[in-house]
């Protein structure tokens, strides 16, 4: 076949001077600039584009826009691959490569088409019913087979090389859709000076007018479009967005638009951003989203060559495609007669128009008759026939009581244009929470009463004439501008003459002349291969609700979300249940209107830009000294510092030994810090913490536990008192923001009378912990103006002075049980002070250590880490920390201690565990049981919360939360592990080193 053999000699909006080469299923074709892949393939006589999902039946293009359920293609390969792209919406570009999805080995010969022969054995719910047993077969066999057989396109596995961006916009009026109603609305609103955004999913604005043969003010419709766009371009506050799909209508008039910036360009010409996500807050919204034509339901209605009548006109008039040589039109309404006339005008032999109505007298049927087109009235197409392309139809009479009868006649054809009426595109209206209303008169759902500041106009409001679209659009645009406080009037409606139409005859499915269970399959949802018989089966099996039926049959679950099939499906279910369509219910449309690529939703929030990375002032030093890092919240914290040849285990052992035997230092800057000032500061802490604060001496520090009102531990840390009304609180690294918000909330909402001011100073201060028996000697050299003697600087005291010449707050506290000092300095001076500590400690081989060693050191002493040894269900008493609770006075969480469940003595309690084999380190999270051989379910006695190898103890140590654990000292429990081992361990107190606290009492 020569290039574009099915291209009409004249007409259309394609650019014949610009041929475009592309590849489909490995074969090269030529189209024109302005084509879609669908129109270009049709212009080359290619109608078979896909295989269906379940039965692998041949499928072709049925529609011309977003509603297309069949013609899904795998576009491009590798990183640029797009799965399930609709051929009807892919703009053709040079060297485009596309292939069929769901066909193996090829779309022409599909091995899985054998499923079609067994269609009666693969009814709705087949997978639910068949692949149930044995359970283990599901993941290993069934799922693999089903996925291979039933897959749509293939998602790319390569990193997406494209960039995406997001932008925010506010406007007075957002107009969705640039057909006649939308253009009219944008003009009327734009002329007022209002900020208007007009978005349309197509490359070319104009919608239905681009294929229309009607005139507006005596001009061809397309010329009116050009003039409207030219005027909009002169209005500075109007923004026109082509290739922009408004896919979400969210709360408070917030709408999301996916604008495709370069998908229409050859791959090599693409640069910058692929798509832009517009996040629009609109004062008013005008929805002008048009309507989708409904298919008619009869046997083999899915054959390639069966197309919606409106799409037939679009391909004929807009793309200049000769869709066939012999066409039949089957319609229950007047609009498809226009398609018959369009085909006739293009030189296609229109064999007949089949119409279930008797003697149609509308203007268009009369015009068709006048053009010599045969009309077979009071009749229906009961079945199409053909293989990979329709070759003919069977036509029978339709009696007044809705049954087929009389003798059948066969008509040969290679194109069947069908129209079952029109469904307004109410998706966005429905998303905005307006509840759709069924109209018996128009046989469709109409947009419901607006809930948000929106209005629907034109075909999406059920106003299908051009005059109504223009008049409604102009009025709605002007009114939207007025409601957004702009003064304007409604422009006069242009001169338009619509043909007089007769009412349609609702025909949800053609009665089958065959016996029940026989006859060819009549499809409702093409993409998911849902037929009339499947919905009837669902009804027979007891499915009453459309929502359940949808899930059982997969009706409307495809990438097209049932744009074509849902209404027919509901009507068939309503009939099977002997109830009306509105009783059967509608379906609630949810975002997204059409699929949106993840890249657009992610935008730039990817990789290292996904979440901020926080680094301490000493980060550079850690990097220079080979630290391995651990993520703690957003922070990068040194995990351990391996020396050459050391693994993590060796490095941590060395660091742990140094801290207990010599001196070591750690960057503790990530601890949350809150500066608390005000005359009620101490009283505030009394309520926030479990212990008493009023009598804390100035220059002294205290450990505090913070609870929620349920009595469970929420955070902990040391707070120092700098002055009568001035404290600095430290929080856990991960809890800093949470605690700050918690404190602010109590002050603002519950205790606004308290005079307390909070300032987060986490980033302002660097904290260097100097730990170990030699720490006093080191800090004495670094801070010569502070007396570090035991008597002058006791445990839990704070002293102010200088460190390496920098103003410093030094606190003698310990998270390791060793003599230990924390030097706090201005973060900007951190490196200078750290270097001075390193230099002062050089002769003791001062050792930097990371979070892993910190964890081991504190576990050796049984100190908890909130969030590791506690999980939101652990009280202070459960941790053996009753000593931190004051005896009198209220605080947050106290009352919950006496709740029966909290007061139980046999709660899970924090204990130590020593494994029978000292060389075995229990995995954290391991569950503990009494008898590892007991039958399942084996009662759980508790779980391991912390577990390490302790170089200082020369064995493994662990902490665990065990039921009634305090009373079970010496009992042996067992941890059955995933690898089959069972580790035995004995319960002990969770202090493994220096239980008397002698190390820090020096």
């Amino acid at each position: 076949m020569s290039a574009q053999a099915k291209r009409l000699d004249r007409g259309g909006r394609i650019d014949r001077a610009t041929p475009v080469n592309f590849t489909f299923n490995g074969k090269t074709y030529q189209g024109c600039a302005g084509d879609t892949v669908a129109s270009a393939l049709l212009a080359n006589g290619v109608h078979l584009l896909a295989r269906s999902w379940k039965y692998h039946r041949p499928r072709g293009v049925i529609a011309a826009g977003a509603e297309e359920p069949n013609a899904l293609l795998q576009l491009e390969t590798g990183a640029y691959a797009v799965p399930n792209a609709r051929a009807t919406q892919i703009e053709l570009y040079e060297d485009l490569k596309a292939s069929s999805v769901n066909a193996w080995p090829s779309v022409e010969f599909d091995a899985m088409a054998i499923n079609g022969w067994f269609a009666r054995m693969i009814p709705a719910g087949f997978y639910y019913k068949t692949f149930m047993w044995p359970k283990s077969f599901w993941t290993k066999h069934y799922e693999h087979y089903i996925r291979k057989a039933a897959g749509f396109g293939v998602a790319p596995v390569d990193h997406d090389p494209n960039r995406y961006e997001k932008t925010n916009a506010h406007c007075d009026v957002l107009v969705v859709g640039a057909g006649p109603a939308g253009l009219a609305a944008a003009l009327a609103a734009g002329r007022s000076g209002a900020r208007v955004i007009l978005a349309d999913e197509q490359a070319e604005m104009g919608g239905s007018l681009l294929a229309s043969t009607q005139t507006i003010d005596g001009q061809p419709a397309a010329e009116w479009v050009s003039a409207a766009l030219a005027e909009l371009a002169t209005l500075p506050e109007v923004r026109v967005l082509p290739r922009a799909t408004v896919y979400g209508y969210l709360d408070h008039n917030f709408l999301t638009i996916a604008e495709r910036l370069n998908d229409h360009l050859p791959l090599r010409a693409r640069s910058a951003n692929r798509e832009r996500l517009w996040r629009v807050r609109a004062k008013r919204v005008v929805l002008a989203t048009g309507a989708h034509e409904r298919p008619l339901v009869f046997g083999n209605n899915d054959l390639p060559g069966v197309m919606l009548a409106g799409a037939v006109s679009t391909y004929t008039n807009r793309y200049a495609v000769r869709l066939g040589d012999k066409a039949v039109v089957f319609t229950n309404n007047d609009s498809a007669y226009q398609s018959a006339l369009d085909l006739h005008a293009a030189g296609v032999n229109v064999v007949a128009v089949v119409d279930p109505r008797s003697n149609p007298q509308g203007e268009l049927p009369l015009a068709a008759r006048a053009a010599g087109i045969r009309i077979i009235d009071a009749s229906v197409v009961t079945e199409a026939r053909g293989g990979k392309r329709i070759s003919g139809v069977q036509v029978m009479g339709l009696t007044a009581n809705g049954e087929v009868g009389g003798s059948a006649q066969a008509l040969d054809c290679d194109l069947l244009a069908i129209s079952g009426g029109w469904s307004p595109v109410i998706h966005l209206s429905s998303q905005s929470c307006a509840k759709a209303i069924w109209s018996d008169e128009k046989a469709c759902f109409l947009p419901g009463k607006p809930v948000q500041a929106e209005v629907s106009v034109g075909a999406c409001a059920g106003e299908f004439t051009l005059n109504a679209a223009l008049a409604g659009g102009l009025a709605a645009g002007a009114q939207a501008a007025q409601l957004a406080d702009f003064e304007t009037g409604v422009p006069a409606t242009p001169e338009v003459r619509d043909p007089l139409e007769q009412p349609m005859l609702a025909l949800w499915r053609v009665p089958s002349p065959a016996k029940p269970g026989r006859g060819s399959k009549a499809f409702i949802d093409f993409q998911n291969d849902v037929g009339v018989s499947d919905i009837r089966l669902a009804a027979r099996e007891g499915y009453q609700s459309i929502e359940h039926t949808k899930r059982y049959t997969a009706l409307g679950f495809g990438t097209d979300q049932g744009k074509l099939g849902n209404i027919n499906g509901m009507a068939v279910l309503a009939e099977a249940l002997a109830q009306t369509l509105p009783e059967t219910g509608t379906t609630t449309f949810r975002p997204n209107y059409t699929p949106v690529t993840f890249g657009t939703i992610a935008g730039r929030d990817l990789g290292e830009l996904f979440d901020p990375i926080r680094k301490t002032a000493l980060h550079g030093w850690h990097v220079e000294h080979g630290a391995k890092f651990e993520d703690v919240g957003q922070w990068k914290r040194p995990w351990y510092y391996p020396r050459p040849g050391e693994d993590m285990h060796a490095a941590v052992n060395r660091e742990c030994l140094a801290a207990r035997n010599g001196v070591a230092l750690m960057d503790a800057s990530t601890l949350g810090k809150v500066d608390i000032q005000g005359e009620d500061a101490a009283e505030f802490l009394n309520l926030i913490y479990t212990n008493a604060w009023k009598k804390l001496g100035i220059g002294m520090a205290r450990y505090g536990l913070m609870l929620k009102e349920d009595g469970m531990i929420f955070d902990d840390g040391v707070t120092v008192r700098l002055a009568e009304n001035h404290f600095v609180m430290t929080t856990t690294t991960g809890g800093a923001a949470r605690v700050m918000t918690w404190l602010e909330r109590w002050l603002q909402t519950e205790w606004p009378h308290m005079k307390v001011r909070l300032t987060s100073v986490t980033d302002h201060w660097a904290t260097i912990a100097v730990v170990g028996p030699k720490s006093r000697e080191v800090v004495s050299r670094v801070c010569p103006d502070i007396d570090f003697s035991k008597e002058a600087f006791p445990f839990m005291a704070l002293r102010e002075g200088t460190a390496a010449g920098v103003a410093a707050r030094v606190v003698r506290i310990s998270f390791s049980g060793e003599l230990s000092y924390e030097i706090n300095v201005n973060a900007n001076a951190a490196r200078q002070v750290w270097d001075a500590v390193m230099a002062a400690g050089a002769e003791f081989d001062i050792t930097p250590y990371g979070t892993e060693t910190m964890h081991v050191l504190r576990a050796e002493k049984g100190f908890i880490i909130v969030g590791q040894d506690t999980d939101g269900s652990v009280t202070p008493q459960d941790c053996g920390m009753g000593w931190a609770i004051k005896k009198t006075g209220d605080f947050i969480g106290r009352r919950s201690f006496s709740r029966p469940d909290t007061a139980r003595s046999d709660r899970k309690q924090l204990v130590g565990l020593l494994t029978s084999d000292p060389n075995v380190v229990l995995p954290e999270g391991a569950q503990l049981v009494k008898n590892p051989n007991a039958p399942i379910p084996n009662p759980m006695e508790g779980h391991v919360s912390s577990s390490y190898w302790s170089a200082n103890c020369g064995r493994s140590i662990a902490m665990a939360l065990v039921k009634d654990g305090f009373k079970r000292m010496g009992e042996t429990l067992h941890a059955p592990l995933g690898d089959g081992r069972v580790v035995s361990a004995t319960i002990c107190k969770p202090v493994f080193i220096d239980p008397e606290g002698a190390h820090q009492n020096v």
Partner: protein
Amino acid sequence: MLLITCPWCGPRAESEFSCGGEAHIVRPKDPDALSDAEWADYVFYRTNTKGDHAEQWVHTYGCRRWFNVIRNTVTYEIKAVYKPGETPAGGEA
């Protein structure tokens, strides 16, 4: 994406805020005077209102101030916004 009017900063997108749940739950002055059931009601129980619902919000990525919102849980319409200690205009909290 709700549009929430912060009483201090003006209308801002929902993504700048965090919701703190039901408003006007007063911490008991004397928790010891409460029965376990009464205390549990304060700590754990919240109304699941269909319709106008008073709730606390905080302008997390703005002024960090807490305030009260009357929001319809069906339509998501925001009927009133008022500061702590205030009562909503034309209604009771």
